[in-house]
């Protein structure tokens, strides 16, 4: 027995984990009967169905006819930079305000590109701040904390 299709193997495991998760949690809710369903009924059976599908995908990844596929490598640097830039934005927005948060988001995310330059990214950040400020804050009048907390009256 050899895993021929690694991607399907991974997907099968993922489906089974998610399916079991939903099904197990569903048992904490009232099940009810088919005629009078409780909140647990539908998610429980969907979770079971998902687990079975996962098992099927998993089994098929071993079959002799499965295409040989490897899971492509994860590029952790890019993941960290893109996700990190968004999380940073979330952390900074309520504390240091819109302007700082947007500039940080642009600079950190731009550094994930192989063609990153400080000059280009700073110009891009300036342009995007000006553009989003005029469209979202001035134009659509959406509410944002604009300045850092310590600068607000």
């Amino acid at each position, binding site marked *: 027995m050899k895993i021929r299709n690694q991607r399907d193997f991974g997907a099968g495991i993922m489906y089974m984990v998610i399916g079991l998760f939903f099904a197990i949690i569903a048992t904490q809710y009232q099940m009810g009967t*088919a*005629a009078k369903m409780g909140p647990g009924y539908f998610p429980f059976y969907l979770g079971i169905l998902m687990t079975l*599908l996962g098992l099927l995908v998993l089994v098929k990844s071993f079959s002799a006819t499965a295409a040989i596929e490897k899971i492509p490598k994860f590029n952790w640097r890019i993941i960290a930079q893109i996700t990190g830039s*968004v999380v940073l*934005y979330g952390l900074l927005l309520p504390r240091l305000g819109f302007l700082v948060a947007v500039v940080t988001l642009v600079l950190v995310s731009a550094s994930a590109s192989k063609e990153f330059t400080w000059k280009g*990214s700073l110009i891009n950040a300036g342009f995007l701040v000006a553009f989003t400020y005029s469209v979202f804050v001035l134009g659509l009048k959406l509410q944002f904390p604009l300045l850092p907390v310590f600068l607000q009256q």
Partner: protein
Amino acid sequence: MELFSNLALGFDTAFTLQNLLYCLIGCVLGTLIGVLPGLGPIATIAMLLPATYALPPIAALIMLAGIYYGSQYGGSTTAILLNIPGETSSVVTAIDGYQMARNGRAGVALFTAGMGSFFAGCVATLVLAAFAAPLSQLAFKFGPAEYFSLMVLGLIGAVVLASGSLIKAIGMIILGLLMGIIGTDVNSGVSRYAFDIPELSDGIGFVAVAMGVFGFAEIMGNLEKTGDDEGFLNKLTTMIPTKTDIKRMIPSILRGTTIGSILGILPGGGAALAAFGAYSVEKKSSKYSHEFGKGAIEGVAGPEAANNAAAQTSFIPLLTLGIPPNAVMALMVGAMTIHNIQPGPQVMTSNPALFWGLIASMWIGNVMLILLNLPLIGIWVKLLKIPYRFLYPAILVFCCIGVYTVNNTVFDVYVTAGFGLIGYLFFKLGCEPPPLLLGFVLGPMMEENFRRALLLSRGDFTTFLTRPLSLGLLIAAALLVVIVALPAVKKTREEAFVEE
């Protein structure tokens, strides 16, 4: 004729200054994202959903619809000039369109694409108007059992026609359905899967899921690709076609329009599938089939007409039955619910101005698009020079601002980041996310109708099989699965997706 009075009402609504303006904005944005590779209509509509809060519902829907069909126009420009399809639906246009451009006929190819799209768009608007009323009437006959079976058919159809591995795609649908259930259960008031997180009691934000899985994950995927495949930008040449060109393109446009209109209505249909379908029909039926792949004008006219027709007729199931046939339409459901409009047959009676206004706006939008695209093509070509390294931080900024404004909380920003990671994992494991979005939108509706159907039948599951309409829909769904599983069909289907 009722149809004409309805259309008159539609044009009255669409021809207000505000609605014309939003139609134009939608068309410009649509063309823009169509031209820019790496930014598709799903991510764009998700990005702009929050910004439409401030708009009246009709203006919002007109603009979002414009983005979808506008992107079909824009996508062909890059396909022809650069051999880089801006949208998946222009992949086949690139085959012959780019060859035409290499032969010094870029202008004619663009003209053909534009005229094909325009004609198809006009016809599709009429099809939409004509089919809407009878289908809505049918939908009123539906009880919960029929609705449940219809959703099963819709979801199965969506994956059978439009994705790679069938089992994996069904898994994604179920995952979507499960995610849709998160939040407070309307029947019992019990909070499910929220784990005492107050922000989750209303469920996971639709915008956060769509932006994360389609926006963020795509960016991470794009950044990994080594080396940009920059094509050779062809020069623009005269747009005036010769007499033979016109003679050859007209039948193709007619065929493409028909194929596109039909495939758009089917669940799982939509622009990309229609373009593929039209191309293979053209290739088989043309007497110039030896020219295909070397710059046959039919290979541009047919698919371009088809993708635009399908982009518009895919609104039919959404507007009449309330069932989105593809991921973009799932986003439109999100847009409608944001504005407190429940998609379904009642929209036409309870909100006729909105319904017919949206349809009329599509015709107006097509006129705007042909004006935007043919004379102004030079401007769009310049946009192609914006490098991706400037584009993706901008996408992130718009997403982050947009998702924050939905509930004015950074919690949604973190959720979006999380779904970006999940989307990246899907991408690595070869699980396609569009079915997930469909399931996510339909999840609560499906559970509700399932519960109601069984409540009415006192727990008897045969209710789905004893009601003739419901049985018919389920048989259709089962047939779809069986047909796809047949070895012969399976093989051609796999080949078709390899070409993609």
